[in-house]
């Protein structure tokens, strides 16, 4: 596929996008290789109270926490939780939102209006508040965080796909396909969806960052995975009692969250430019 080679090439040439992609790639590698990379993998679930609150040194690169566990090791294993939450929550939101937006946008009339009004209701409530309410009601666990996040995120994709579908469905090539006898399902899946996929990909990448941020916020509030799971948001929450003396305690997970969210945003921004040939990025190197 020549297109994909071209996309990959542009991705490598654009510094910001490349940085974003590298961060995301490192996150995925960290999650997969956590047992190999972490200096003290057993520390995730074990205490060494004698070592508690050690500042960063040659043994514990990011210091230790209140239980004496190595923070770096916990961070690496925490990447697994972060990726799991982000992938499943965003995946569910896309799987629910995209078909709803597609059907509503294609058929219009009252079914479309109904679906869009429902998504409007979800959008009217501040997303974090709704997620907190759902997670609080269901009790703290990773599953409930995922459920809360996907329940609050799907309208973003429904709205986006709805608007894009509305604009594409009046194109002549759609009419041509219908005139050639293509069924509605065929038109939606094979003709409209490929045309709007770049918008969905971009939204999904940026949405991953937002989801990780919200998941961390839920963890911070104690609504995420129960301890001792190495959830980044919860690690920051635990560190509050030891600030400002144990500065390293909050810094490491804070930086991790910051880098990952920035990575997804940079990647999403870059993908928008790469996948849409109509927009030419001004600052980057282009020929």
């Amino acid at each position, binding site marked *: 596929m020549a297109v994909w080679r071209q996309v990959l090439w542009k991705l490598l040439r654009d510094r910001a996008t490349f940085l974003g992609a590298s961060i995301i790639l490192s996150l995925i590698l960290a999650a997969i290789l956590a047992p190999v990379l972490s200096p003290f993998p057993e520390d995730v679930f074990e205490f060494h109270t004698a070592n508690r609150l050690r500042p960063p040194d040659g043994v514990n690169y990011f210091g230790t926490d209140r239980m004496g566990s190595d923070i770096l090791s916990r961070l690496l294993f925490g990447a697994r939780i972060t990726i799991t939450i982000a992938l499943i929550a965003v995946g569910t939101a896309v799987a629910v939102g995209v078909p709803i937006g597609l059907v509503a946008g294609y058929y219009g*009339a009252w079914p479309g209006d109904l679906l869009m009004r429902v998504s409007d209701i979800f959008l009217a409530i501040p997303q974090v508040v709704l997620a907190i309410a759902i997670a609080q009601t269901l009790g703290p666990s990773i599953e409930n965080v995922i459920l809360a996040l996907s329940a609050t995120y799907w309208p973003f994709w429904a709205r986006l796909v709805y608007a894009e579908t509305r604009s594409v469905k009046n*194109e*002549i*090539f759609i*009419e*041509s*396909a*219908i*005139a*050639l*006898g*293509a*069924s509605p*399902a*065929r038109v939606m*899946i*094979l*003709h409209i969806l*490929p*045309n709007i*996929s770049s918008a969905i990909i971009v939204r999904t990448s940026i949405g991953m960052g937002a989801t990780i941020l919200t998941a961390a916020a839920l963890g911070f509030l104690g609504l995420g995975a129960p301890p001792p799971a190495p959830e980044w948001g919860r690690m920051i929450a635990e560190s509050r009692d030891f600030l400002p003396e144990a500065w390293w305690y909050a810094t490491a997970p804070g930086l991790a969250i910051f880098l990952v969210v920035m990575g997804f945003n940079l990647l999403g921004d870059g993908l928008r430019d790469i996948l849409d040939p109509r927009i030419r990025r001004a600052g980057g190197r282009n020929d």
Partner: protein
Amino acid sequence: MTELLAVRDLTLGFRTDAGLARVLDGVNLTIDAGQVMGLVGESGCGKTTLARAVLGVLPRNAAEIAGGEIVFKGRDLLKFSPGALARDICGRAITFIPQDPYGSFNPVFTIGTQIMEIMKWKSPRRVTGHWSEHAPLLGPYPAERRRADMETVVALLDAVQLPQPAQILRKYPHELSGGQRQRLMIAMALLPEPDLVIADEPTTALDVTIQAQILGLIRRLANERNVAVLFTTHDLGTAYEICDAVTVMYAGQEVESAPTDRFFAAPAHPYTGKLLASLPRHDGEVAGIPGEVPNLVRPPGGCRFHPRCERASEACRSGKPPAEMLDPGHSVRCFHPVRPAA
């Protein structure tokens, strides 16, 4: 010649805020097998609507078919179930060449992907009655048939004078010129070996030299393959060049239908006469037709042309003139047709 398509008394309207706009009001049109029929008229007279009605792509929520029939090969298309229409007629027996070749390709797939996708479902080699006709997203495309279809495609691209077909198939629509795209559209319309091609102003978006080539191509291929063409245009010169017969529409009704030579030599309807007189002359003078196309929500009674016609009488204001056969193949709807000086 055998009658391929007969539109009889087709009446349909679009719901608008002002009321029902009767875009087609008792239209009649017949096309014989292998005949190139020109459908001529001013903008807004219903040419495109009629073409779309035959194709079955009228917007379902806005259009209301009030009566009439569209008989294709002896069967009324309006009585078909949508599934059967999609399977047997649309894209198989009736195909079309769109007006604007720029928007007619899906921009995200290569030309080859799009053509082979059509061939997969509409190729004359396809097996009918296969289960996949009911699951159109999953159907298999046997490699052997694919290869045979590919050869047909390359041969036809050659026939529409597109050099280096293999390269063109690998390109994306935006990498081709308008003329190339319209040639591809013609090729795609002919690939399923249809009986009727509907060409809706296929050359409007092209410049004049390409126009002439494309028209010649349509004419030649229609003759070679015995395909009937319904060719809508507002350009009488175009109609003269490639059509066997011409039907003139005015405000949703057909007013005159005649073989091309009769049509240009002895136009019988006053509107046809004025239309021919409105062609720019070589001295640069242009004669317009006074008045304007009537409001279709409240059309004038009787003959719809009477407010602009100097031959109009009381009869024209009260009743719609019946179709009168002047000659074999030459019919006119007028109480006071222009008779050639004998």
